[in-house]
């Protein structure tokens, strides 16, 4: 029984695992655990939750590899399992209390901006605040409802396309686009408040 090589394709490894060569499971684990960890941390921002997600995901892979039919790539299949597991963790935390409406742009009856929008994008002198701002962005993402957060993480953080995010979440491309846009609007509104109302800076 040859050990798994880094040059072996996922497909080879999956076939060998299905045929009962269990040693290759560790190769798949080594190949994908970092990616699943990053995803789980982005979703949950909590090391214990991320660890449980990792355990769930790879146990599911081990248990269900027999039913993986190879119609999609192994990576896509695993990603979908990971997104589901991370979403379950988030949903388990209960509903988000905060109202999102107040962060969405407001318009007049005839569709104009209800108030002047300012440009708060940082200039060079703002670089000092980078660390602080990262924290604000993290907290703002944290406060999004799970489904919005998932789409935002997959598209804007992980860099998936609309189609890939739709596949990973098992929803339509249209739903991905709608949630992504709304999540970005809420986040933008929160950052605007943080950047333009000095009182909110801690």
């Amino acid at each position, binding site marked *: 029984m040859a050990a798994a090589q880094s040059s072996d394709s996922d497909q080879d490894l999956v076939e060998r695992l299905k045929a009962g060569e269990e040693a290759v499971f560790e190769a798949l684990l080594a190949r994908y655990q970092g990616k699943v960890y990053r995803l789980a*941390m982005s979703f949950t921002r909590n090391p214990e939750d991320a*660890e449980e997600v990792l355990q769930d995901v790879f146990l599911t892979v081990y248990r269900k590899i027999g039913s993986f039919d190879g119609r999609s790539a192994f990576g896509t299949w695993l990603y979908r399992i990971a997104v589901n597991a991370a979403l379950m963790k988030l949903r388990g935390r209960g509903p988000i209390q905060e109202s999102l409406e107040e962060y969405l742009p407001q*318009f007049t*009856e*005839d569709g104009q*901006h209800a108030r002047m*929008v300012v440009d708060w*994008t940082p200039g060079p002198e703002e670089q000092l605040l980078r660390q602080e701002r990262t924290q604000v962005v993290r907290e703002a993402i944290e406060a999004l409802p799970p489904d919005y957060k998932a789409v935002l993480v997959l598209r804007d953080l992980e860099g998936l396309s609309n189609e890939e995010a739709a596949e990973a979440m098992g929803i339509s491309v249209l739903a991905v686009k709608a949630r992504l846009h709304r999540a970005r609007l809420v986040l933008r509104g929160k950052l605007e408040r943080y950047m333009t109302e000095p009182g909110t800076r801690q």
Partner: protein
Amino acid sequence: MTFWERFARWVRRPFRGRRSMMTCREQVDLLADYLDGALDPEVAGALEQHLDGCPSCLNFIKTYKATTVLVRDIACEEMPEELMNRLTSFLKAKIRQEKAGGDRRETQP
């Protein structure tokens, strides 16, 4: 609505029906597709024309785009080696346990 608001609406009225006069709300609704380059060229043109004459929307699109960049900037730390080891041990133990359970089940009549 005050007299002046009604007056302002009345003044803007002739422009509202024109194709190129996209409203701010419409502009905001189209932003994601616009940034993806997924808009029909004619619609993208109307959006850009609107941006030319609307400082608020110009600032809105700048800050919307900046938001996506800020999200991308959140670097996630690498998976700690300690966690990798713990995960491997957990999975090995669990799989061993399941197989033992499975074997027992198989031997039952």
